[in-house]
Every structure is written in structure tokens, then in C-alpha cells.
């Protein structure tokens, strides 16, 4: 985009920053400079350790597929991997069920109510993850408030703390915003007048929703689900604190292998599998959505 001169801008008084930017866009390759810091940072703190770990999974203790063979046969790794996939799926579905009506309501209410609703979504980010997880430990105890409540309606006590159920509850709460926000981003762009059109053409309101609104909301559903699923796969703090070692998830297993057993090869193999799973998911989804939409960055599908 060559811009030859800046006669339009030169008349205005605070012209310096504008000039600077034009100067950059006039020489496109200078723009590359803008991403250099980010690339350097990612290369040293992300790409290098990941590459090193992948390398170790093939090379430690000896070159070969030994670590992957063990992963499939040690009787634990595969179990943990499947449990991780299952819990990530459950958490994704539960967050979706909770977030969809909430995000839908956000598109209906007035401006003020909406900002309150956004604040409620973001509230968890203002408290530390540790604090929230400790709070869940208290809430989920056998004689904690949730079980008291259940007892009052004649249920329970349910074993929540130290179980998969407890971990699922905790993870759902932590991951809910990552579903709600991309979903809301998509829902707000849907023209509600299309629903009127569908109803005018003979569709009952529920049919209109299913045939028109729901399909148009899919980019947001997929983006939110991707986000939550990927984050849930690698979740550590909540399962470590709310769950039990006998029901650990993959990141807990990795931590044990690497920090306690110093078995970098086995840990690396787990990390590599997790990494490949994530890439596979992204690839699958980007068949339906543009890559940026799949990551929730854009609110619309490609079409």
C-alpha cells in the first residue's frame, strides 16, 4: 500500500504520530520490525522448550520410540489420557449448556444490564485461580455448604471434594468465561430480524431458532468449545487441588514424571501427545472455520 505523500494529514496540528505510522506503512518491510519482539519472546520461552521436550521424548534415555511404547503399555498413561479427554469433553459440554442461554440473554437486554452481565463473566479473572480453587475445596467438602444444602432437600451427602465430579465443577467455573465471551461475540452479530422473517414464512418460534439462529451461532459455539476444550486438556491447578492423585489428569501425570521421577522422556512423550491432539483439533475445526475464528479472534465464520 504505497502512500506517496501526506498532504491530507499535514494540515492538522498533532501530526507527528500520524506521520510516523504513514512512514511505516510507506515502507512495508519496516512493519516486520513490529513483530520482532513477540517472535523473539515466543522463540525463547515457548518454541525452544517445546522443541526440547519433543526431542527428549525421542532421545531420553535412548534414541527411539521407547517412551511412546511405554506410554501405550504402562497401564496408567493411556488411562489418564482417556480420562483427560473425557473430562475435557464433559467440561466443554457443561460450559456450553450454561453459557449459551447466558450469552443469548446478553444480546437481548439493555446496555446497562449487559455491562453488568459482562462484569459477572469477567469477575473470576479478578480473583486468583488459587483463591477460587481453595474456595471450591471449602464449598465441596463432605460437610461443606453444598452438601448441607443437598441434605436439606434430602439428597446426599455426595462425595465431591477429591473426585472427578468436584474437578469438573471447579474447571467449569474457571473455564466458563472462555465459552461465554466468544459465544456472545458471535450471537451479537446475528440479525434477530431473520427470526421474524422465518416466523413470517411459517416457522414456529422454536423451529425458527433451530433452523436460523442456531446454525448462525455455530462459529461462536465452535470457537468457545475449542478454547475450553484445549484449555481443559492441559489444566493443572484445579485438578491437582480439587481432585485426587488416583484420578489425575494428563498434566498432573506429566508433572509427576518430570519433577518427581525426573523421567524427561516419558513426560516429553505425554506432552507431545497432548500437543499433537491440540493441533489435530485445531486442524479439524479450521476445516469449518477460518483459523482466527477457530481461536475466537474473529466473531464471524468465513462465509
Amino acid at each position: 500500500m504505497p502512500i506517496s505523500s501526506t498532504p491530507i494529514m499535514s494540515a492538522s496540528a498533532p501530526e507527528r504520530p500520524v506521520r510516523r505510522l504513514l512512514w511505516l506503512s510507506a515502507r512495508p518491510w519496516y512493519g516486520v520490525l513490529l513483530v520482532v519482539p513477540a517472535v523473539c519472546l515466543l522463540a525463547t520461552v515457548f518454541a525452544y522448550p517445546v522443541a526440547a521436550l519433543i526431542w527428549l521424548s525421542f532421545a531420553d534415555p535412548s534414541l527411539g520410540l521407547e517412551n511412546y511404547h511405554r506410554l501405550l503399555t504402562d497401564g496408567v498413561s493411556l488411562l489418564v489420557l482417556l480420562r483427560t479427554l473425557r473430562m475435557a469433553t464433559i467440561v466443554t459440554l457443561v460450559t456450553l449448556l450454561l453459557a449459551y442461554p447466558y450469552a443469548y440473554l446478553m444480546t437481548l437486554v439493555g446496555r446497562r444490564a449487559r455491562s453488568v452481565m459482562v462484569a459477572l463473566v469477567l469477575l473470576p479473572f479478578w480473583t486468583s485461580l488459587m483463591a477460587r480453587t481453595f474456595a471450591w475445596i471449602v464449598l465441596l467438602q463432605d460437610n461443606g455448604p453444598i452438601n448441607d444444602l443437598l441434605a436439606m432437600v434430602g439428597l446426599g451427602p455426595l462425595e465431591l471434594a477429591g473426585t472427578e465430579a468436584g474437578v469438573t465443577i471447579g474447571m467449569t467455573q474457571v473455564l466458563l468465561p472462555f465459552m461465554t465471551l466468544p459465544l456472545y461475540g458471535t450471537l451479537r452479530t446475528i440479525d434477530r430480524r431473520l427470526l421474524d422473517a422465518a416466523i413470517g414464512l411459517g416457522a414456529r418460534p422454536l423451529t425458527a431458532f433451530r433452523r436460523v439462529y442456531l446454525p448462525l451461532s455455530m462459529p461462536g459455539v465452535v470457537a468457545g468449545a475449542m478454547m475450553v476444550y484445549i484449555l481443559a486438556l492441559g489444566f493443572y491447578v484445579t485438578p491437582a487441588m480439587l481432585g485426587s492423585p488416583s484420578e489425575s489428569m494428563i498434566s498432573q501425570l506429566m508433572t509427576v514424571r518430570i519433577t518427581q521421577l525426573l523421567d524427561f522422556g516419558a513426560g516429553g512423550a505425554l506432552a507431545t501427545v497432548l500437543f499433537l491432539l491440540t493441533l489435530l483439533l485445531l486442524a479439524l475445526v479450521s476445516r469449518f472455520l477460518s483459523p482466527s475464528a477457530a481461536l475466537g479472534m474473529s466473531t464471524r465464520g468465513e462465509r
Partner: protein
Amino acid sequence: MTDMRGAAIRLSSVTKRYSEHQPPVVNDVCLEIAAGEFITLLGPSGSGKSTTLNMIAGFEQLTAGDILIDGVSVASLPPYKRGLGMVFQHYALFPHMTIAQNVAFPLQQRKMRKRDIQRRVDDVLDLVGLAHLRDRLPGQISGGQAQRVALARAVVFEPHVLLMDEPLGALDKKLREQLQGEIARMHRELGITFIFVTHDQEEALALSDRIAVFEGGRIEQVGTAQELYARPASLFAAEFLGESNVFHGMITERRGRVSLVGEGFEVLTDDGRAGLVGTAGVVVVRPERIRLTVGDVAVEHDVNAMTATVTHIVYQGSYRKVAFRTDAGTTGSAREPAGAESSAMPGDRVTLCWRVGDGVIVPAQSVPVVGLPGDALVESTS
């Protein structure tokens, strides 16, 4: 597409109020629409046309009154049970469905067999000349094509009534005229009742059997284009449709005639509306009815004459518009067809002449004309 027929619609004192504290947005609207008629709701923005249409469609609830389709009240039916076709200004095509799927949508809602749906969709896409676009998505076609698809989708299930809310408002002039032609053709071929909303008087005049002029939530006047143009019932209707010369004064009865006496002039009419005598009123004269002569002329019988000065002249191709100021201070214009112009030039003293029958008396302020006794031009169901 052959056995379709229109439904008659009756609006009876239809009223819509959004808030207790504000005047109604649609106020006591009464209208009879004949089966197969093309009627246009014409009025400025905010006059309540869309609200009226949405009440017919069922998207808005009535505050008072009733709507009958073929004699049956539909006021409490939801839109999906009214079976009316509707076209919006914003097309409202479903962006995730192909053109063919969009058009098939209303048929699927009616649980029609797949093969029949396919055939009907093809038929109606042929009708609007878009069969070749059937597998495109709405985002891949132009605005004019999108509106044709919306039309196809609205008539594919053979509704008895088609409602259109400024369907051409988003298109440029050329496309608009082209689509006007297509809408008129569809009305002829389908034979169903069309209710068309616009704020564009030319569009209304070009398309409609009858026009209902809306203002402030009320119907000012209903009639054919010729009736509205020749005998406007109110100053608003006169000024909204076409151009007008407007003379203000008191309505009196003189020499057996209803006439208007202004400051320094008098205008005779043969308007029979004796009910207005003694009130402030207006005489409306269309520009092409005024004949201009330079200098003084002998005044004929049954002709109004007034002296004026030409202020400026605008050439419009097939005619020229001569703007003047009368000696009594009224500004206005006359329209002279090319080839029959007077020799009047800016600054000339001229005499304006028009036949007594060419002036129409209307009340000075807009008062609801609905229900005026003996006024054949105003449809009233009361």
C-alpha cells in the same frame, strides 16, 4: 402458480400505542383492501406505515381495533399462522442457506414433499429469473438479486396476501425502476393482494391501484393516484403527492360558489364542500393547471385570474417550471410543457389563469378527514 387468489383485508379502528404517555403510533386506522388489489401505504418516515404492516403480519400486537382477513379476525393469531408473504427492506435472506434453500424454507415449514418443493422452487426462481443462482449463498449475489429472491421466497407458498415494507429502499434508482416493473408483473400474474409500504410518492403512483396516505399514525386519504392528485383531501396529502400552489384564506360562500378570500385576492372554486364555509382554508392548484400570459388578459367566465411577477425559470427537459410571486405575496409555480411555453421571462409581469374547477379547497390544518360526511374520496368503515 395459477390458482392463487387474493384475500380481502379489513383494518377496523386499528390502534397501536407503545406507551401510555405518548400519542398512539397508529391511530384509529380504518381501511378496506379488496381481494387482489395493489394498495400502497404512503407517508413520511415515522408516520406509522411499518407498524401498521407489522400488525397485519402479526409481528406487533394491536392496542385496539381488529384486523380481518377474508372476514376472519386474525388479531390474536401469531405470524406463522397467518400465512402471509412478507418482504423486508433488508431482504432478510438466511445467510447460511443457498438461494434455493431460502426459497424452499416456507415450503418445508408446510411439510410439503421433497419432490414438490424442488419443483415449486424451480418454478418460482424462474418467475423472478434467478434459476441460475440457485446454489449461491445470499452473500454472493447483488442487492437487486437478493430482493428478487426475497420476493420469490415470499410468494412460493402461494399466500393470498404479500406484504412489502419499503422493499426497494436499499436499491439505486435504476434497479428500483426495474424491480418496480417486476413487482407490477408479479401482481398481475399472481393475482394476490399486495400491500406495499413506501415513502416514495413516485413509486406509489407507478405501482398502486390505490394509495393510503399516512401522516402522524392516521390515514389522511385513500384513493387512486388520480383521485389523490386531482382532489387531495388535505393540505398534507396535496403537498406530499406532487407539487402544489397553495393559497391561504377564509372559506366563504359567494355568488352561489364556495370561494376563498385571502389578503388582497379571492379564489373561486366549484368545490362542493360547504361544510368548510366560515373556517380558515386553503385552495390547492396544481402547477400544470395554471396558464401564464405576459401582461394583462381579459378574464373569461369561470376562470380565476391573478397578477404576478416571474421570479425564476427552471428547465426540466420536457417542460419548464416558471416560479412566480403574486402581487398578494403568494409564491408558487406553473408548469409549461415544451413547445407550448408562454414568452414569460424572469422579471416579467404576468397574469395567472386557471379554471374554477381546477382549484381544490382543503382545511388549513390537518384534521382527520376520515368520516367526513359525504366525502366519497375517503374510505371509511365507520
